[in-house]
């Protein structure tokens, strides 16, 4: 990549984006209690500053002809044929992620000042949050798969620490462990993909790997694509590794908003989009991405309909929405930009929804059971309005964010043509209907109807420090889609990364798609009103329900399958091995030694002092030898 123009100094300093929040985390963790009073302000300040820097960097980047800057920092690992430079890549794709991460990140930091105000471990919380932002920025800014991997596991760590933030709760500790382990399963795929790249091309940097795709055999590219997909599924909670994400809701709600909705869980989409040159060369792997995306968007939506826990419904909604994004990037050049656009708008409205849920929980003494909510619209007016706008954006209410970006994905799926286009498009439309159903159910159970609060609960609106970020995100939920699709088309901005989008021959006219989707969404809303809105919501979940509802309540048995196939056999195997090691291996080796000695209690007899005297004997010999040597040298 030849850069003719001189790179603006500001872009060369883009490492500060990562360094600022990292320094914040270090100060808070090492500074200890001394930083209790102002630590949260420092943490918020570093992320806000990083956002400002990100805006300036993006403006600079937009002014360049090439719109891609690689910044080399230092040699990370160089031995043999391997040469990994620690370096950053600032291009249109990483720029939009940096803006999302620092922007939403800063808002959620502000919100957390209020949300965590009374938590004795607030400083630790902000330190971890800063750590997350730094790792996430490294993930999207690194210019090689190794840098991405470092950030990838870094966000996994931050996610682990924050899910287990209330560490005295056993459920939190278990959920954190589950998240990290399922992510590591995915990480094995990512690691192996990197090994294959190195074995075949001798490099791990994006530029060189993408430049070498043409040299690779088709099977190799497909293998790399599938291995990367495994990593993406782990991080993004996609089938079959989706079960950790709902459990991750054990973490404080700002964490759910930032990490488990807006940013980290979308890293899988980033990985696939970033690897576009690889996926472009392997239709097979792309098809698998499509299937995973379509399957997961349905799984998430179906399960989302059955849960009563407000955060879990939103979590399954995230699983489902990321399914849409996978579907989009699986379509290849026709869908990359659409997937990223939905990722950005989703970042706004889902973060807003989670912050709203947090505000509700704040008002309801940390209650998350929607059967214990109801009638909160009047008590929490700001929360209601901002949450409501996020809700409308998510279900694709005409001209709000989700409408633009989700419809684009459905259109792209249909444009694929043939039976697979109809099938994928149909699944996506069905998903939109289900989304409308479960989100309307959530709205009705939370904000409308009669109050079903537990005794002693006195709901009150959250302080401004919490509602202000919610308002900002609500504005984004309303406007972002229109801006990204109509005003400043993301497709154009991302063109240097994904190439010029081919003008697709539409199978179905976009206007018709819009109309059908809107009708399906309206049907979903109406069904929800018929099921939930018309009658009183019982405070305990009905026990006699259809098999489908039972299955959905159990997350379509994902946990049960994991348990039966992995956990129980694993536990048995471990127990068996511990027994074998103690009796078998140790017994065999010790027994063989004893057999040589002609006694079954050789070890026992030797304890009487023989070994001790033998040991001293060796020592004595060594001393003599050393003495002789010294005498020899001097004489």
């Amino acid at each position: 990549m030849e850069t003719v123009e001189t790179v603006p100094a500001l872009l060369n300093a883009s490492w500060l984006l990562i360094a600022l929040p990292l320094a914040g985390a270090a100060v808070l963790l090492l500074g200890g209690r001394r930083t209790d009073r102002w630590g949260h302000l420092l943490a918020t300040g570093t992320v806000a500053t990083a956002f400002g820097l990100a805006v300036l960097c993006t403006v600079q980047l937009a002014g360049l002809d090439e719109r891609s800057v690689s910044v080399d920092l230092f040699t990370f690992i160089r031995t043999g044929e391997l040469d990994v430079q620690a370096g950053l890549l600032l291009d249109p794709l990483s720029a939009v992620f940096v803006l999302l991460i620092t922007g939403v990140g800063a808002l959620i930091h502000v919100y957390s000042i209020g949300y965590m105000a009374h938590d004795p471990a607030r400083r630790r919380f902000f330190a971890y949050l800063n750590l997350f932002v730094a790792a996430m920025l490294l993930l999207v800014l690194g210019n090689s798969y190794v840098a991405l991997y470092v950030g990838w596991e870094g966000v996994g760590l931050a996610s682990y620490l924050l899910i287990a933030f209330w560490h005295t709760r056993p459920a939190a500790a278990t959920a954190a462990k589950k998240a990290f382990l399922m992510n590591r399963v995915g990480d094995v795929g990512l690691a192996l993909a990197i090994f294959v790249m190195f074995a075949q091309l001798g490099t791990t940097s994006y530029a060189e790997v993408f430049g070498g795709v043409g040299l690779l055999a088709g099977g190799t590219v497909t293998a790399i694509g599938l291995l990367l997909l495994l990593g993406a599924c782990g991080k993004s909670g996609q089938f079959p590794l989706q079960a950790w994400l709902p459990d991750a809701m054990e973490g404080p709600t700002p964490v759910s908003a930032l990490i488990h909705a807006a940013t980290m869980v979308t890293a899988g989409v980033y990985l696939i989009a970033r690897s576009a040159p690889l996926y472009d060369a392997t239709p097979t792997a792309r098809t698998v991405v499509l299937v995973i995306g379509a399957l997961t968007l349905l799984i998430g939506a179906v399960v989302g309909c059955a849960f009563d826990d407000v955060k879990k419904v939103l979590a399954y909604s995230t699983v489902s929405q990321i399914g849409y994004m996978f579907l989009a990037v699986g379509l290849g050049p026709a869908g990359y930009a659409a997937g990223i656009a939905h990722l950005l708008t989703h970042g706004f409205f889902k973060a807003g929804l989670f912050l709203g849920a947090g505000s509700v929980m704040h008002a309801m003494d940390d209650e998350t059971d929607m059967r214990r909510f109801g009638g909160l619209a009047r008590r929490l007016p700001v929360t209601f309005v901002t949450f409501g706008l996020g809700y409308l954006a998510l279900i694709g209410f005409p001209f709000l964010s989700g409408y633009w970006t989700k419809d684009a994905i459905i259109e792209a799926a249909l444009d694929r043509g043939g039976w697979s286009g109809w099938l994928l498009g149909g699944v996506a439309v069905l998903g939109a209907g289900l989304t409308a159903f479960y989100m309307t159910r959530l709205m009705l159970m939370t904000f409308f109807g009669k109050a079903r609060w537990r005794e002693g609960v006195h709901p009150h609106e959250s302080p401004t420090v919490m509602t202000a970020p919610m308002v900002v995100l609500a504005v984004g939920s309303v406007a972002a889609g229109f801006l990204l699709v109509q005003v400043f088309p993301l497709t154009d901005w991302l063109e240097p990364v994904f190439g010029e989008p081919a003008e697709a021959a539409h199978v179905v006219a976009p206007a018709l798609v819009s109309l059908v989707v809107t009708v399906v969404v309206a049907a979903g809303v109406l069904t929800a009103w018929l099921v939930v809105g018309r009658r009183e919501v019982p405070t305990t979940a009905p026990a006699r329900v259809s098999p489908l509802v039972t299955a959905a309540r159990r997350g379509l048995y994902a946990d049960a399958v994991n348990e039966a196939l992995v956990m129980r056999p694993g536990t048995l195997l471990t127990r068996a091995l511990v027994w074998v090691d103690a009796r078998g291996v140790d017994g065999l080796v010790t027994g063989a030694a004893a057999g040589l000695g002609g006694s079954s209690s050789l070890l026992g007899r030797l304890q009487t002092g023989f070994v001790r005297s033998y040991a001293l004997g060796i020592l004595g010999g060594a001393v003599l030898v050393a003495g002789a040597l010294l005498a020899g040298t001097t004489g």
Partner: protein
Amino acid sequence: MSDVPWLLLMIVVPAIGAAVVAALPPAREALARQLTLAVSVLVLLLAVGATASFDPAGARFQHVSSVDWIPEFGVSFALGVDGIALAMLLLTGLLVPVVIGASWRDTAPANASMRAFWAWLLLLESTLVGVFAATDVFLFYVFFEAMLVPMYFLIGSFGGPARRYAAVKFFLYSLLGGLVMLAAVIGLFVVSESELGRGTFAFDALRQLDIDPGVQKLLFAGFALAFAIKSPLVPFHTWLPDAGAEAPIAGSVLLVGVLDKVGTYGFLRYCLPLFPDASRDLAPWVLTLAVAGVLYAALLAVGQTDLKRLVSYTSIAHFGFIALGIFAATTEAATGAVVYMVNHGIATGLLFLVVGMVISRTGSRRVADARGLAETAPVLAGVFLVAGLASLALPGTGSFVGEFLVLLGAFPERPVFTVVATVGIVLAALYVLLLVQRTLHGPPPDDAAPTGGGATAVAVRARVRDLTRLETAVVAPLVALVVVLGVYPQPLIDLVTPAVEATLADLGGGTR
């Protein structure tokens, strides 16, 4: 500076220190430990000096000295280091002062004195330096056996309840391996005599021999058994959980941190260059044991209920990775193995230290008795977490660089072994996170009065205080190194790579 006899000083200074400390009168306990610390710091400075005056691009062995010892048999007291040996010396020099600090307030059990403890510790350091600095195979063998003695007494006199059993088991296993190696060492001499007309033990002469492949296999087996026991590789590992669990913390740290590295160091320094054909032919066997160990020991670590045994098993799993790197025999993988050896010494050393601090607070080695540390002792818990994360080779810690290089470098040559070993990174996460969940997380014992039982639980909580200043000073350098070597590992890699390349050149091929 190059004429300073760095290596000889590093052997002699702690040996003399050991003698002086042992000879001090019982009333001078305080002086004894101060002297011990001073000596060990001096050795560390010597190691740093030796590194500073070492030129990685220069001759393969530097700081070379040689004195005839038993001329009749061609034995000489020959010392010299390459980058690999130097890295091991730095690790040794670092860990000894650290464990002295960790044992600073220990009291001796009945029938023993702390002066003896300090003296054995210094003597151990002296023999460890000798093992890594020897360039004469016989001298190596002498130090290899001699280091058993101080470790035997450290475990047997200062260890836990089952220390006798553990010490004897450690000694017998090592002795058995040592004797087989002695036979191979003598065999090597005989071969050199028949080829050169004059027998020698000098490494540089031996590695240029052209030994018959059949003989190579026998000699390789002799060395390899000793190193497989020492490392240890499955199934020769069962002495380590006993020894690691029963040894005093200083002993556990040095045992797993440095002593075990002698095994993997031996594979790299002696097996590969001296028996290149056998190393290539038999590599699949060693690799099978290595990769089996990665999975087997990891699963066993998951199943342990004793903190120190658990850490010992994690260590066995890590040695599987290191052996994979060595026998995959690419520059990247073998460099990774050495980087991993250094970082494993730091990370597992740190983990043992922290576990020791936990045990000294709860008075129990049982994992279940350490619940809720994050609540009662947050700084200790934080250091515990760092050690655990380094143990699961999280990026940002030095272990990651080692493990990643091993797997990445081994993959082109040994894809099947590498893929199986890579599954081990999930198991590593499992045993570390289970450990973290059971010790750091959950409510502290006295919050669970119904199950814990009132009075004892309160007593437990009272004992659990956070890190003292001394303890902080002991762990701080290791925590810092975990991060520094994880973020900027290139200086270490630069030190090691030329030596690895020279070693693999002896093997023939190997640059990949």
